[in-house]
């Protein structure tokens, strides 16, 4: 008990010292800044890649599902093309969602891009490819949740499938999935903390490296945790604001 109290006392007594040791000495804060920069870079780039891949995959999958009957009837080139594209998309989703992102990162770094040592770029790509699979399912769910009557109303006015999607369905889908999409990016931000596996100095690795050299774990690790927490809180606020605004326009 006494020992514990002593430790606590020592800890608070030396807060300033710990801070100087972990962040000021030898400009260690610069490592943290590099980490911060990389984490944000990877997250933002991955989110963009994820949205692009997600929209592409969701479009392929729902186009196939929605037009299966028509396509099969005509049995033309379009039918075979869509069947192949749908199969590729399905396989992609199965593989990406069926394996851990760390394993995907290691495979990308040590096998697929073994010749490149640009860890940050590879991390961007890996997390983007990974996120794309989840974004695709969010979008597909959004498209499938739109009442079929909306498609029929579009067709009956003379819009073709893509015009119906573009003018009528997608605007409604975006509204519905925006909160889920932002939640996906919150998860993505936290997932990038495994980027250190391929020697990328993200914020997590930066904190850990400092801990390793100073043997003073408290400051760097809590700083890392706080960073994620603050980012997530900001994003959550954005989600809530967006949700509230969307509800308002519905009324």
């Amino acid at each position, binding site marked *: 008990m006494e020992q514990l109290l002593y430790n606590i006392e020592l800890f608070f007594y030396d807060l300033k010292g710990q801070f100087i040791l972990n962040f000021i000495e030898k400009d260690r804060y610069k490592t943290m800044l590099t980490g911060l920069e990389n984490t944000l870079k990877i997250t933002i780039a991955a989110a963009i890649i994820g949205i692009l891949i997600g929209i592409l995959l969701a479009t392929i999958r729902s186009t196939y599902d929605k037009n299966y009957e028509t396509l099969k009837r005509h049995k033309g080139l379009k039918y075979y093309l869509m069947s192949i594209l749908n199969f590729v998309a399905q396989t992609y989703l199965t593989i990406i969602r069926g394996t851990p992102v760390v394993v995907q990162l290691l495979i990308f770094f040590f096998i697929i891009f073994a010749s490149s040592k640009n860890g940050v770029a590879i991390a961007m790509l890996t997390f983007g490819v990974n996120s794309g699979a989840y974004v695709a399912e969010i979008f597909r769910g959004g498209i499938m949740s739109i009442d079929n009557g909306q498609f029929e109303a579009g067709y009956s*006015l003379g819009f073709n499938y893509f015009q119906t999607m573009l003018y009528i369905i997608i605007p409604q889908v975006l509204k519905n999935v925006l909160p889920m999409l932002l939640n996906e990016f919150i998860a993505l931000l936290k997932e990038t903390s495994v980027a250190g596996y391929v020697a990328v100095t993200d914020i997590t690795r930066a904190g850990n490296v400092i801990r390793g050299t100073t043997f003073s774990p408290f400051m760097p690790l809590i700083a890392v945790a706080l960073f994620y927490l603050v980012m997530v809180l900001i994003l959550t606020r954005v989600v809530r604001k967006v949700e509230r605004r969307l509800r308002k326009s519905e009324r």
Partner: protein
Amino acid sequence: MNDNKEVLIKVTNLKKHYNNGAVKALDGVTAEIYKGEVVVIIGPSGSGKSTFLRSLNLLELPTSGTIELDGIDITGKHVNINKHRQKMGMVFQHFNLFPNMTILRNMTLAPTKLLKKKPAEAEKHARELLSRVGLADRADAYPSQLSGGQKQRIAIVRALCMEPEVMLFDEPTSALDPEMVGEVLDVMKELAAEGMTMIVVTHEMGFAREVADRVIFMDGGVIIEQGIPEEIFNHPKSERLQNFLAKVL
């Protein structure tokens, strides 16, 4: 009706089978719709009347048979069905207005994108139609702010914005509260009086009697009997029609 009837839609031996023929929603329907004619299709539920109507603009793909619109078989492989759908306005049981758009936008979307009308021109036309159905003041409202009857009137004028040759009505009053049925039927009557070609699937026998030029009775995926309302309602020939009328009148 005059004698020099001009055929607008010609349906020949139309069939729609599900599950490899186990279910026959349409089992060989042949019919002609003339320009300016109001045709009301009646029949028990599951008789194929909605399927028939939805086949006319290929929302349902027929298994076999042909549908000619202005002499062109629109079931053909190389037909651009979207062009033909522009000539056939459709009104649905559940309105299917676009919930994220204002009433005005609901009405001007298709004319501006498909007919390449100028926004101002499309808006002018939309506002004219809105005031004709007594909803001029709701142009900037969203569908969720309207009653069922108002929504259906909007759905009708939205279809009219494309200046179609024929209007298809798929049970337009079935989802409405009883007190709102009248306002929608009034709009339809007005439309009929203006000479619009209309094909209406409905359970409103009063409307059929009053407005229809011809009534078609369907059951089991085929047309059982057809004729002027007076014949159909007062002198039904087939037993099935007699049974049906006994239940609904």
